[in-house]
């Protein structure tokens, strides 16, 4: 490939898709490199397909770990030939996809803003670091993203849970009957409940039709009613005439010129095993938090013996993910409701933003950072696989063992379960990071990541609080806890922090625009640049990618790169 592109964008998900969208609109010639295959939601999404039509009633298998109908292609926690390792005692699980649009094709679509406190958390409690930007600096970019992708929700006026400007949000999804019940329960505890902010359309928006209120979003959406990079960002980038896409391209190195600036990237074609290099005036890494860190760590040279852009030693450090307790409960009161269509947006229509800032400020809690709650409860399309728990599992919790009594109990309890999911902020610690495994390589001989993982008491105390909250809401509403875990799992597919942004080259990888301190034409755009990780990251990835790609385009125009 001899062509010289203005920008090589590595990755096509939330960050790569947005970066390509912004850069191509600015007139720059962009090559997008995606590790997986091309993916066409309009043709490939299994809309309305029934579990009975799928192998094993759509149950999870090692081939399709998200269930048969999950949008993910060639992905999951274990990819043949593309391993990662965990250091002794660590159990991290890294979800990857191998498809255009990456994980945006199946994500949960909760699109929440970070609040003013979140950008200055070190100043508030002395832990972690502050972001080098404020909420006010990012707010206009959140506005733009919400206007572009379409976010349903409501302005609730809650502490550190920012409202959007008037006219930006689409109408919220009406609550399901079961959600109204649980909402009243939380409110009786003094905990406010908010309309879920979902990147799913409730009316015609920028030419995209609204939700059909059927078919789970994790399958993707053939009509583009939810946000996927492949339906919202990549089509206009392609239509600009400025985008080329190379699929099956596993980028493993940023190439340098004699001055130590980025000259392009090298990749291996996953189908042929052949190695290629492409040239570009600037490079954007948006391969996902951990994959971008891996590329930098593998880009070693005499000038950068620790890996590229790693003079601070922070590449791979500061890995954080979401602290999550999941409690399953059943509510006899909901047995009184008649059968109803609960499909809706397939996700929860309401959520519980963190509510106890005042208690934390008064040091009444034994953990410094909060969590939000995602209450999943509805009578969903019965299936043996995700997105909902297999209908077969509910038989396990019936009193009746068989016969007409089992039939009656299954019918009575259908749609009466709630899964309460806590989504908490983790504080970076020295024992949680990624580095290169000194021994293990992937099938093409490229060193793989090794995960180190350990929660601090901050997270474990917060998880205990999550569990207590779920017990209380269940008890108040006359429910019964079916299952609750002892501890949170190591992460929730929300990796951030491994190429952290900061105010100084001494302790961060990139500046506030995602620009490498030492390699000026190298940018990181994905969740790796987050300085903290208070809640679901996707909307913030999109906002930062728009802001930082605009900066890149402007610097390119000025000839500064």
């Amino acid at each position, binding site marked *: 490939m001899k062509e010289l592109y203005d920008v090589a964008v590595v990755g096509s998900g939330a960050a790569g898709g947005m970066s390509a969208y912004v850069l191509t609109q600015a007139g720059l010639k962009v090559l997008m490199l995606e590790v997986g295959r091309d993916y066409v939601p309009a043709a*490939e*999404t*299994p809309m309305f397909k*029934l*579990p009975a039509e799928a192998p*094993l*009633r759509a149950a999870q*298998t*090692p081939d*399709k770990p*998200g*269930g*048969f109908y*999950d949008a993910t*292609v*060639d992905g999951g*926690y*274990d990819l043949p030939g593309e391993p990662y390792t965990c250091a002794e005692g660590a159990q991290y*699980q890294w979800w990857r996809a191998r498809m255009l649009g990456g994980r945006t094709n199946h994500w*949960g679509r909760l699109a929440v803003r970070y609040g003013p406190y979140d950008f200055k958390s070190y100043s508030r409690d002395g832990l972690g670091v502050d972001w080098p930007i404020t909420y006010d600096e990012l707010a206009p970019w959140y506005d733009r993203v919400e206007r572009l992708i379409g976010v349903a929700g409501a302005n609730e006026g809650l502490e550190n849970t920012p409202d959007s400007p008037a006219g930006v949000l689409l109408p919220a999804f*009406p609550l399901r*009957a079961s959600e*109204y*019940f649980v909402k009243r*329960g939380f409110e009786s505890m003094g905990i406010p409940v908010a309309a879920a902010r979902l990147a799913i359309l409730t009316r015609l928006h920028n030419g995209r039709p609204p939700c059909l*209120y*059927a078919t789970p979003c*994790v*399958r993707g959406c053939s009509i583009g009613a939810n946000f996927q990079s492949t339906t919202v960002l990549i089509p206009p980038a392609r239509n600009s005439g400025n985008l080329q896409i190379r699929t099956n391209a596993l980028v493993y190195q940023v190439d340098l010129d004699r001055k130590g600036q980025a000259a392009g990237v090298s990749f291996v074609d996953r189908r042929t095993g052949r190695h290629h290099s492409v040239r570009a005036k600037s490079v954007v890494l948006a391969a996902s938090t951990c994959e971008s860190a891996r590329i930098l760590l593998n880009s070693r040279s005499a000038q950068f013996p620790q890996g590229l852009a790693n003079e601070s030693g922070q590449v791979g450090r500061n890995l954080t993910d979401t602290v999550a307790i*999941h409690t399953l409960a059943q509510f006899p*009161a909901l047995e*009184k*409701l008649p*059968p*109803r*269509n609960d499909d809706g*947006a397939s*996700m929860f229509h309401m959520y519980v933003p963190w509510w106890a800032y005042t208690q934390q400020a008064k040091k009444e809690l034994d953990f410094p950072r909060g969590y939000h709650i995602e209450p*999943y409860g509805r009578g969903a399309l*019965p299936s043996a696989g995700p*997105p909902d*728990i297999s*209908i*077969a*599992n509910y*038989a*396990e919790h019936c*009193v009746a*063992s*068989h016969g*007409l009594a089992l*039939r009656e109990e*299954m*019918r009575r309890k259908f749609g009466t379960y709630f899964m309460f*999911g806590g989504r908490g902020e983790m504080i970076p610690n020295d024992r949680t990071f990624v580095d290169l495994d000194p021994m293990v390589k992937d099938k093409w001989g490229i060193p793989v990541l090794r995960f180190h993982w350990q929660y601090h008491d901050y997270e474990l105390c917060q998880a205990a609080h999550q569990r207590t909250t779920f017990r209380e809401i269940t008890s*108040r*509403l006359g429910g019964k806890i079916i299952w609750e*875990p002892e501890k949170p*799992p190591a992460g929730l*597919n929300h990796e951030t922090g491994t190429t952290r942004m900061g105010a100084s080259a001494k302790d961060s990888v990139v500046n506030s625009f995602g620009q490498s301190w030492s390699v000026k034409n190298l940018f990181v755009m994905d969740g790796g640049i987050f300085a903290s990780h208070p809640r679901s990251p996707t909307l913030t990835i999109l906002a930062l990618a728009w802001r930082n790609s605009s900066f890149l385009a402007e610097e390119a125009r000025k000839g500064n790169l």
Partner: protein
Amino acid sequence: MSSPQITRRETLQWVAAALASSGFPHYAMAARPRALRETTLRGYGTDPDLNNPVVPWKRTMTGHQLQLTAQLADLILPATASAPAPSALGLPDFVDEWISAPYPEQQRDRSIILNGLGWFDAEAIRRWERPFFEVSGEHQKRLLGEAILEAAGNESTAGQFIRRFRFVVVGGYYSTPEGAKDIGYIGNVALQSFPPVSEDERAIIDAELRRLGIY
């Protein structure tokens, strides 16, 4: 039902499995065995055509096993005036699809379910000198009842069988359109808008909340 210990372990497995994937609580729960890939070459692969699903593996049960499966499935979820029996919805074939699949969970179920089917025949022959399908309905129910008692935490052949057989039959039955209708599922149809909580629903919930002391 299983003992608390068994229920807990099994629940852990399925919650972990459900959460470890995508979408819904689309998140990792606990470590999944890292070696699960080994048998997938014979499965449908990591990139199947989702709009034209096929089951690439062959069914492996004998006619006798299918007959026994039909009888037991129909005892677990007997037909009603409005809902057909499992055998009328092809559940024996689904059990065959399940236990013939190359994946680890299904391979584990294969030995449990086939051994369990053999247990019913062996017990019927030992007690009444006939295979299960030839003994009276009363004897069939008696054997099933004993197996269900075994399922309460007992790792015996019959106990393990009931737990997994019921899982597959119940899951397979209610994920058919007829089963979904019987359980009260309404949906999978395109709507113009999603209706808010109705007055009737609100009244029911408000009454329940008052009963619970929430006003």
